[in-house]
C-alpha cells in the first residue's frame, strides 16, 4: 500500500495509542514513543513491523505515541491510519488477519 496523504488514528487515552502517518519517498521511518518502552519496546516494534509488512507498506513516516495499548489495539490503530492514508478503494481482509 502506498501512503499518499497524512492521516491519524487513535487517541491519547490510556490503553490506546495515536498513530500519525505521512508520505515519504523510498524510505520507511518509524518513530515509537511509549510509556512502557522499557518493558515492551521490542514487542511494540515487532507488532508495528509485522503490521506494516502484511499491509505491504514500504515507504512513509510512521509516528506512534503509545499509552500502554495491547498488541491488538496497536495493530488496529496502525491499520486504520494506513488505510486512511491510502487510495485503496476497499479492504483486502485476507491480509488483515
Amino acid at each position, binding site marked *: 500500500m502506498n501512503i499518499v496523504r497524512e492521516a491519524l*488514528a*487513535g*487517541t491519547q*487515552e*490510556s*490503553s*490506546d*495509542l495515536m498513530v500519525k502517518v505521512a508520505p515519504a519517498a523510498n524510505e520507511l521511518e518509524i518513530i515509537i514513543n511509549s510509556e512502557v518502552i522499557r518493558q515492551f519496546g521490542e514487542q511494540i516494534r515487532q507488532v508495528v513491523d509485522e503490521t506494516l509488512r502484511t499491509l505491504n507498506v514500504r515507504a512513509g513516516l510512521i509516528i506512534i505515541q503509545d499509552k500502554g*495499548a*495491547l*498488541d*491488538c*489495539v496497536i*495493530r*488496529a*490503530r496502525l*491499520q*486504520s491510519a494506513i*488505510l*486512511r492514508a491510502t487510495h485503496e478503494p476497499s*479492504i483486502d*481482509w485476507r491480509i*488483515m*488477519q
Partner: protein
Amino acid sequence: MSPLRRSMLFLPGSNAAMLSTAFIYHADSIMFDLEDAVALREKDSARLLVFNALQHPMYQQIETVVRINPLNTPFGLLDLEAAVRGGADVIRLPKTDTPEDIDELEGHLVRIERECGREVGSTRVMAAIESATGVINAVAIARSTPRLIGIALAAFDYVMDMQTERGDGTELFYARCAVLHAARAARIDAFDVVWSDVNDEAGFLREVELIRKMGFNGKSLINPRQIDLLHNAYAPTQLEVDHARRVTEAAKEGERNGLGVVSLNGKMVDAPIIEHAQRLLERAAASGLRR
C-alpha cells in the same frame, strides 16, 4: 441447556481501554457496538479495533456479539465482514423489521463464511426489534433462520416509533409480551432493553425483577456495575433450590414405584413441575445462589 445469557454488556467499539479490559467483568456476553456508540468519523477505526480485539485470547472464553450498523447504511456490510472474519460468535442486527432483513443478512453471512474458511452456519444471529413493524413481525423474525439465538427488544427507537417515551414500563408492555412469546414459540432466547440510568439501582432492580418473572433470559447492559446486580437477581434462592431438590427426589421415588404423578406436601408433582425443578437446579449450578 443453552448457555446462560443473562447479561450482555455493550461496549463502544471505538473505546480501546474498554475493549482491553471488559473481559474482567464476567458478563455472560460482550457486545461490541459499531452502531450508535460510534461517531461517524470513527466507524472505520472502530471496525478494525473490534476485528482485532475479537481475535485476542482474552475473548476466546466469552461469548462475543457485534452490533453492526444496519445493512442499508454504508457501514453495515463492512462491519459484517470485520465481525465474521474476526470470529464474532453472534451478529446483532439492529432495526430488524421483517424476516427479509434476516434473509439478506443470511446471504451475506454465507458468502463471507465461505470466503474466510469459516464453517457455514457457525456465525449466530440476534435480531434487535426496534419498531412497531418489528414487534408485529416478531414471530416470523424469530423463525427466520436456525442461526438465530435470540431476539432483543430495543426501547429507544421503539418508543419513538410508538410516539411515546420511556416511563414505568407500561409503554413497553405489549412489545415485551410479543417479543417474549415469539422467542419462546421459536425456542430461542429473549433479551430485554437497556436500563440507561446507571445511578438508579433500585429502578434497575425493579425492572430486572419484572422481566425475570415475565421469562426473559436477560438484559442488555450499558455499565459493568449492572452485571452483578443482574446475575444476583437471576440466581435462585436457597429456598427455591431446597424445594427443587425435594421435587426431583419425589419424582425419582415415584418413578421407582411406577407412578407418573406423585405428591409433595399435599401438592401434585407432575412432568412440568419436575422439568421446572431440574432447570432451576441447573441454573443454580451455573450461577450460584442469590445473596
